[in-house]
């Protein structure tokens, strides 16, 4: 009973604190505007807001669709739909990612529930890697972001698919089931409408929060890092690939939005930007933390570095052939 009261108290404080802060901000609006007079800071805010505004429709539609599929498509469907042999289930699950739109934040819990429903982990992991990178929403966003380079869409889809299948097969050879520890679920049995909106709310707040962090980082790089410095880095083919691969991990941008950030890094070669787009949806800080939460830490520390290496190699290969 005390526990419930305690919970009720903290809950109201959060909303009230938010309200107080907002009221204060509105009251002191003039003096705040005075602070941000500097041209560099204004440019930072403009770039920050524009990355977000551009990404929002993709984020929202991705979350809505992934909530529809998570709630209204029975999980057993995937177990029945996949081939029985694990080596065949891996490519099948990767390709299934094409029709399952959503960003990586949505794919992690779905992959967890696939394993829970008896899908072989290798196939579920291939799905986890493929779904956020090669679904129609992400590929459309890529095409919109690179209007002059339609081959970018093909290269991104193919390279991501290759990484997903390779990692699935790698797991079949080397993976150990005991690395994966799935936590218990609590939200079974809720009504469909409730589960749907709960999934939407959670995914938007979660993914949106990380998107804000990513947009801020992208705006900072855009404004603070001198163009000449980026040009030196971008001029070296090896350095530029490594720099953008690391950047993709650090920025943790949602796969529905990362193409727009990549497009803005226009000093870099197309191949290095392709690396950014292939690595980002598969390995990044927020994904590593989510995977540690859903599959266990022992899994995340092995899976993420391996995926990083395979993704960089596959993207460079695809870039060499297609771009």
């Amino acid at each position: 009973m005390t526990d419930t009261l305690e919970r009720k108290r903290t809950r109201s404080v959060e909303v009230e604190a938010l309200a107080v802060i907002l009221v204060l901000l509105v009251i002191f609006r003039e003096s705040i505007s005075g602070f941000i007079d500097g041209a560099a800071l204004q440019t930072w805010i403009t770039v920050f807001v524009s990355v977000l505004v551009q990404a929002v429709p993709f984020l929202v539609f991705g979350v809505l669709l992934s909530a529809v599929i998570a709630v209204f498509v029975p999980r057993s469907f995937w177990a029945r739909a996949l081939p029985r042999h694990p080596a065949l289930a891996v490519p099948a699950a990767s390709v299934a990612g094409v029709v399952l739109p959503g960003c990586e934040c949505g794919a992690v819990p779905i992959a967890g529930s696939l394993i829970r429903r008896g899908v072989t982990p290798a196939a579920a992991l291939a799905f986890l890697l493929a779904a956020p990178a090669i679904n129609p929403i992400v590929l459309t966003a890529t095409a919109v972001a690179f209007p002059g380079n339609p081959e970018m869409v093909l290269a991104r889809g193919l390279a991501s698919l290759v990484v997903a299948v390779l990692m699935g097969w790698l797991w079949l050879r080397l993976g150990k089931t005991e690395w994966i520890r799935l936590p218990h679920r609590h939200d079974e049995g809720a009504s469909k409408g409730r589960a749907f909106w709960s999934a939407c709310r959670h995914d938007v707040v979660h993914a949106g929060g990380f998107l804000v962090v990513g947009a801020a980082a992208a705006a900072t790089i855009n404004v603070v890092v001198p163009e000449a410095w980026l040009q030196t880095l971008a001029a070296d083919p090896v350095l530029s690939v490594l720099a953008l691969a690391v950047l993709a991990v650090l920025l943790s941008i949602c796969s529905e939005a990362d193409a727009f950030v990549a497009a803005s890094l226009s000093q870099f070669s197309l191949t290095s930007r392709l690396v950014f787009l292939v690595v980002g949806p598969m390995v990044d800080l927020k994904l590593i933390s989510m995977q540690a939460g859903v599959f266990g830490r022992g899994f995340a520390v092995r899976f993420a570095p391996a995926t990083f290496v395979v993704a960089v190699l596959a993207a460079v290969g695809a870039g060499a052939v297609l771009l």
Partner: protein
Amino acid sequence: MNRQAQAVVLFLFGGAILKASLTDLYLRYVKEGLRPFLIAAGAALVLSAIMTIWYDLRAQPSDDGDDHGHAHHEPRVGWFLILPVLALLLVAPPALGSYTAGQSGTVQINAESDYPPLPAGDPAVIGLLDYASRAIYDDGRSLDGRRVRMTGFVSTGDDGVPMLARIVVSCCAADGRPIKVGLTGGPLVDVPAGTWLQVTGRYTAQRGKDPVNQADIAYVEVEQWQPVDPPKQQYE
């Protein structure tokens, strides 16, 4: 972050997106074509906030444990969504302008295979990108004997030479790069950087180098100029 706080944040975020897309504010950040999607996304955000509150009010006390039992599922990172709300509603940062033009080199112009005749009228109204491309890659052949009128803001190079500039955006302002056209001859342009001008002039073979990235810059022989209000769509 509890469910009500998430609902409030979602509501504010969706509201800010709706406000930006229902007014002309969004044009400072993204291209015009995104508008219907922005409105739909903003509406969906507001709706999911309302549905969250609705299910919360309807919830049986025993349902309360649904989302509270496991703290790691409560995304604290969601508080960051307040930042874009504040940026859009309180600050509403301006479109990129002379600061970006001074920081970045002029955009790399693509050569067209074929330059159609200028639009009819005297002077012919054309964009900076179109002018620069015709001047540099077609040696001004399609500009010959015509007066042109261009609109942009003033950007001053290191050497004090006034240039007419405009930010070119292919997707959103994050990829915005300036296109610059040098101004020569005519009445002295003595307005501060960032002022929007309408310039009427003729093609000249004069060329310059962008101080930032050493790219070619076309010049226009100014006949007259006048300050104008910034256009609704500031990007090209």
